[in-house]
């Protein structure tokens, strides 16, 4: 009898942790819905971390903003406004991000191009007008797009490591870090949590997920969203352990013109929204890498994308244009 009670006590000990799960949401960063979940000893501890994380994200969001000015900071809009005028000295995070953007260009045959600003701006303006007045939606003419594309040479961006300044040579050129900013921010967010002793947490920056795991929470279950805006149904379930998962999809920012979706990921070869996939999700150690490759794979046809996944040792889930789901993960290949 004593032996049984002893065994039961042991079982109870292993079953119970002292930490509880808490969660918070932020609706004012990176133009998206951000969630933060973490295991903490108490609510006060969690709130302190959450506040710190939130202000960190607000700061990065302001630095990477190309539409708004903020008092007392030089952000990406300041750099763009000074194109053809003068180099702008910036904070380390913005400098690092632009530098990472330039290496991404080389890594992806130019498909990720942070100097695509002028072309993306054309699409942005058409999208904003269409969303404000859907009945009068329009798409840009090819002349308008090619004219903008004349000012998208990545070599227009001049970095000065010593002064940590960024200069855009062509006054009609501009930088847009939309394809990589959330990934970079998610990596900084993870560092912030690690520095503050958090070992089990999950951040979802509107499509950029970072998970931290310890023995109390060995993995996080991630649903790959059905590619419909706002849907919380998922088509595939991933387990991540101390890793990032990032989705690029045609349902994230788009408008409709003549019953067709015009989304925000532009193929440099056609200057039009890419058409090969509805979404691609990439699991990788770094969220910046995940952000780069989810966009790159989203643009490429599956046959080419799968070679890259193999070569880079990534895990990826495609939802192709016909809603076929293909997953290449550590668990093997899955097709539906």
């Amino acid at each position, binding site marked *: *009898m004593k*032996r049984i009670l002893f065994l039961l006590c042991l079982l109870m000990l292993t079953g119970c942790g002292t930490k509880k799960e808490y969660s918070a949401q932020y609706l004012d960063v990176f133009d998206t*819905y951000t969630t933060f979940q973490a295991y903490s000893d108490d609510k006060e501890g969690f709130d302190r971390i959450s506040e710190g994380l939130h202000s960190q994200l607000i700061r990065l969001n302001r630095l990477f903003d190309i539409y708004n000015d903020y008092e007392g900071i030089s952000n990406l809009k300041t750099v763009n406004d000074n194109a053809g005028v003068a180099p702008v000295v910036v904070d380390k995070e913005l400098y690092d991000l632009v530098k990472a953007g330039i290496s991404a260009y080389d890594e992806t045959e130019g498909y990720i191009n942070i100097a695509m600003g002028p072309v993306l701006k054309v699409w942005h303006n058409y999208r904003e007008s269409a*969303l404000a007045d859907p009945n009068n939606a329009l798409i840009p003419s090819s002349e308008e797009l090619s004219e903008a594309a004349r000012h998208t040479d990545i070599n227009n961006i001049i970095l000065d490591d010593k002064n940590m300044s960024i200069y855009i040579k062509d006054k009609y050129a501009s930088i847009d870090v939309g394809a990589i900013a959330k990934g970079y921010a998610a990596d900084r967010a993870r560092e912030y949590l690690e520095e503050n002793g958090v070992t089990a947490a999950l951040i979802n920056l509107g499509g950029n*997920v970072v998970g931290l795991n310890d023995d109390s929470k060995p993995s996080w*279950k991630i649903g790959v969203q059905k590619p419909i805006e*706002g849907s*919380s149904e998922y088509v595939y379930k991933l387990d991540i352990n101390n890793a990032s998962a990032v989705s690029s999809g045609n349902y994230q920012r788009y408008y409709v013109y003549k019953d067709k979706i015009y989304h925000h990921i532009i193929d440099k070869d056609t200057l039009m929204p890419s058409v090969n996939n509805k979404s691609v999700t990439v699991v990788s150690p770094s969220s910046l890498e995940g952000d780069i490759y989810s966009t790159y794979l989203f643009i490429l046809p599956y046959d080419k994308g799968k070679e890259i996944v193999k070569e880079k040792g990534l895990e990826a889930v495609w939802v192709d244009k016909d809603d076929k789901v293909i997953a290449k993960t550590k668990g093997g290949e899955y097709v539906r």
Partner: protein
Amino acid sequence: MGNLFFKSKDIIVIALILTVAAILYACIEYTGKEGKTAEILLNNEVIKTLELSEDAVYSPEDFPHVVFEVREGKVRFRESDCPDKICVNTGFIYKQGQTAVCLPNKLVLRITGNDVDTVL
């Protein structure tokens, strides 16, 4: 009984514990599914909990133009005065962990409990 480790009395106790555990588990599973609820959050705070077992219509005090509707165990943003209507277009949600979000009004509707930890 010739068992060296367990005595027959022990086995009865084990059987008893297992039975109780099984009944408890079944209860939790059953009630967990029946008593499903949705939460409405404003700026991180739960401002209302809706029981999905009862059909209802609800508007938060400060948002007379936002209407939530519970029908047949599901819940949705039925109306909203926001420009994009993403929340309304999300439609009915009912699975654990599902959310519908209205960024302009800073309102989040979510089904409590999780099947997955997040959807991306």
